[in-house]
C-alpha cells in the first residue's frame, strides 16, 4: 500500500501524456486523400504532380466537433469538384489533402506542419473550432503559407499574422447580435450565462454578450461554467434556476448544448436558451429532443434564404451528400471558392502572391453572404437569428454589422 501513491501518480502522468501527444496526426479514415485524380491514401505521400495544385485541409473529423469537420470537408470538396469540372485553375487541376485533428488543437498543429513540410501545399483551409485554428495559424504564418479558416470566429485567429484569413464574421459580432436580439426582440431583463470554460470560442461570445447586454440596460444574474465532455449540468442549472433569469445564454457546442437543454427542462427552467453558431448540427436535435424547441441561436446562413445562389448550392449539395447543408458546409464551400478565385488571380503559386490575391477579395458572391475582406483579414457580413421549432431551424431575422 505504501508504494501505491507514487505508482498511481506515475500511471496518471502516463495517461495524461498519452492524451496530450501522439507522434503523428492520423490521416482521416475515409479522406486521407480527397483528390478526384488520386486514388491512393496510404501512409507515404506522393509529391503533387506538376499539373495539379495541392491544397490542404485540417478538420475535426472525429471527436466532439466531428459533424462540423465533416460538413466543412463536404463543402470544400464540392467547391473543388465544381472548379475541376469547370477546367481547374489556369489549366491545372486542384487536389486536396485532408487530415483529421480529432477535435484537438495539438493534433491540429501537427497536421498542419505535416501539410506544410511533407505535402508542400499551396494553401491551407480549416478548421471550424477557433482553438484548433489558432494552433494551426502559428505554423502557417511561420511557414508563410496562406490559410483561410471557413468558420473560426475567434478574433485572435487572424491576428496571428498577414497570411491568415477568414470568410466568416468574428465572435464579438455574434455576442453583440444575440445581446441585441435578447434586449430588442425578446425584451429580456435579466439573463444567466453558462460558458464552456475549455473553449476560447465560448468564453469570447459570453464576454461580449455580457458586456453588450448590460450596456443595453439588461442585468446579469448568474454565471456558471462547464467543461467540454461533461454530461451532467444539473448542479449548474439548479444554481441558475435559483437566480430566476428570463433567459440563458449558452454559447457552447451542440454536443453539450443538446444535453444542457434537456436537463434545463428537467430541473424546471422554462426560459429560452440562446447560443451561437456552435449549435448548428443535426446532433443537437438528436441529443436535445423536444427540449431544444423554442430556443434561439445566431448563425452565418439559413437554408431558408431564397437567394438563388444559396438555393443552387443547397440543390448541388443535396445531390452529392443527400442532406441539407448546414452553415459549416456553406462556409467551407465559400472558403474554398474564395481560395480558388484567388489562385486564379494570383500571378504565381508562391505564398506572398497567393496571400496578396486573397487579401484583394471584394464583394465575393458567397452562398452564406457577400464577402469582403477588411484590412484585418476578416469578412464583413451580416448574421441571422434562427429559432428551433418543429425539429428544425426557422429563420427569424437578420442583424447587420
Amino acid at each position, binding site marked *: 500500500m505504501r508504494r501505491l501513491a507514487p505508482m498511481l501518480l506515475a500511471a496518471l502522468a502516463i495517461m495524461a501524456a498519452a492524451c496530450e501527444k501522439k507522434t503523428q496526426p492520423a490521416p482521416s479514415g475515409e479522406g486521407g486523400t480527397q483528390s478526384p485524380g488520386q486514388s491512393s491514401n496510404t501512409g507515404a505521400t506522393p509529391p503533387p504532380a506538376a499539373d495539379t495544385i495541392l491544397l490542404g485541409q485540417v478538420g475535426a473529423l472525429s471527436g*466532439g466537433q466531428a459533424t462540423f469537420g465533416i460538413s466543412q470537408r463536404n463543402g470544400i470538396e464540392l467547391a473543388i469538384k465544381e472548379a475541376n469540372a469547370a477546367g481547374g485553375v489556369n489549366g491545372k487541376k486542384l487536389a486536396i489533402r485532408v487530415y483529421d485533428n480529432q477535435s484537438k488543437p495539438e493534433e491540429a498543429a501537427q497536421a498542419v506542419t505535416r501539410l506544410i513540410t511533407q505535402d508542400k501545399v499551396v494553401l491551407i483551409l480549416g478548421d471550424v473550432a477557433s482553438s484548433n485554428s489558432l494552433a494551426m495559424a502559428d505554423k502557417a504564418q511561420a511557414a508563410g503559407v496562406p490559410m483561410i479558416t471557413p468558420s473560426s470566429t475567434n478574433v485572435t485567429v487572424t491576428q496571428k499574422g498577414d497570411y491568415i484569413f477568414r470568410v466568416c464574421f468574428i465572435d464579438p459580432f455574434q455576442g453583440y447580435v444575440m445581446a441585441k436580439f435578447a434586449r430588442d426582440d425578446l425584451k429580456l431583463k435579466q439573463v444567466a450565462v453558462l460558458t464552456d470554460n475549455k473553449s476560447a470560442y465560448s468564453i469570447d461570445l459570453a464576454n461580449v454578450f455580457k458586456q453588450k447586454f448590460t450596456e443595453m440596460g439588461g442585468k446579469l444574474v448568474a454565471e*456558471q461554467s462547464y467543461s467540454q465532455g461533461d*454530461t*451532467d449540468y444539473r*448542479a449548474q442549472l439548479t444554481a441558475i434556476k435559483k437566480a430566476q433569469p428570463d433567459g440563458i445564454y449558452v454559447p457552447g457546442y451542440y*454536443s453539450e448544448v443538446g444535453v444542457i437543454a434537456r436537463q434545463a427542462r428537467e430541473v424546471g427552467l422554462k426560459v429560452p436558451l440562446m447560443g451561437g453558431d456552435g449549435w448548428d448540427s443535426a*446532433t443537437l436535435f*438528436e441529443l436535445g429532443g423536444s427540449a431544444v424547441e423554442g430556443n434561439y441561436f445566431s448563425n452565418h446562413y439559413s437554408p431558408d434564404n431564397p437567394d438563388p445562389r444559396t438555393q443552387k448550392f443547397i440543390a448541388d449539395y443535396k445531390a452529392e451528400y443527400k442532406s441539407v447543408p448546414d452553415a459549416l458546409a456553406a462556409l467551407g464551400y465559400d472558403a474554398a471558392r474564395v481560395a480558388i478565385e484567388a489562385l486564379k488571380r494570383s500571378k504565381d503559386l508562391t505564398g506572398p502572391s497567393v496571400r496578396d490575391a486573397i487579401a484583394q477579395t471584394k464583394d465575393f458572391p458567397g452562398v452564406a453572404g457577400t464577402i469582403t475582406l477588411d484590412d484585418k483579414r476578416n469578412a464583413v457580413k451580416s448574421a441571422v437569428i434562427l429559432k428551433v421549432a418543429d425539429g428544425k431551424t426557422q429563420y427569424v431575422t437578420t442583424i447587420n454589422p
Partner: protein
Amino acid sequence: MAQLLQHLINGLASGTIYALVALGYTMVYGVLKLINFAHGDVMMVGVYMGYATAFALGREARASLLGVAVVFAVAMLGCALFGFLIERFAYRPLREKPRLTALITAIGISFALSYGFQLDIGFLPGASPRAFPEIITPTEWLIIGDRDVVVWNWQVISLLIAVGLMVGLQYLVFGTRFGRAMRAVSWDHRVAALMGIPTDRVIALTFMLSSALAAGAGLLYAIKDTSVSPLMGLYVGLKAFVAAVIGGIGHVPGAVVGALVLGLVEEFVVGYAASTWRDAVAFGFLILVLLVKPGGLFGRVAAEKV
C-alpha cells in the same frame, strides 16, 4: 433549503454511479494488484451494447419493465464476456511479468477502445455523441413546492438498481464460496493456489463480475445523462478510479463511500462555489487524502514484505 436538497439528490445520483464503477476497480485491484485503466472503457462498451439492444427492441418494448430488464441483462452479460476476453488474452499472458507491464497494457486497451469506437465502420458507433433511447419514460415522482425540488422516477429506479447491485455484490463477496475464494486470492494468490483454489478461474470471474457491474453503472449513467459517446469511459473511469483510491483501493465498502463523497463534493462545489473549480477540488481532495492517509480512507498501510 430546497436548493440544498436538490443538490443532495443530484450528488447522490452521480455518487452511486461512480460507486458501481469504483467497485470494479477495487475488486480487480484486490485480486491482481492491477489498476485496470480500461475499466471505464469496458463500461462504455457495455453502454453501446445496451444502446444496440434498446434499438433492436423498438420504442414500445424497451419502455416496459421487461424491456429494461432485457437491456440490462444483455449489456451486463455481454460485458462480462468482453471482460473475460480482455483478461484471458491481454492480462493473463502478462501475469508473471512486472506489474508495470500489465498497467501499460491496460492503458493501451483503454485507448484502443475509446478511439476504436470512434470509427464509423460496421457495428462501431462513430465519433458523434448519441442520445440514449428512453428505456424509462421520465415522469416526476415527487415535487416539493413550486417545482423547487423535483425527483424523477428514473432517479429512484436508478438508486434502487444501484443499491441492489451493491447488496448483491456484498453477499457474493462475503457470503459465498466464490467470495471466500476471491478474498483468499486477494490475500495471497500463491498460498491460495497451494490450498487448491483455482486462482485463474477466480481472477477471470472477478473480471467478469467487475465488467458486468461496469455495464450496469454505464446504463444508469446513460439513463441519467441521456448522451453517450466513445470517450465517456475515460472521464467516468477516471472519476471512479479517484473514488476507489479515496476509499482505499481494494476495500469494497471503501469504494462506495469514496464515490458518494466524491459525487457530493463535486455537486456542492459547482452549486455553491464556482463550476470551474469542480475538477480541481475533486483531484485536490484525492491528493489530500493520499497525504494524510496514504492507503485511502479505509485502506490499511501494509508493511512491505522483503
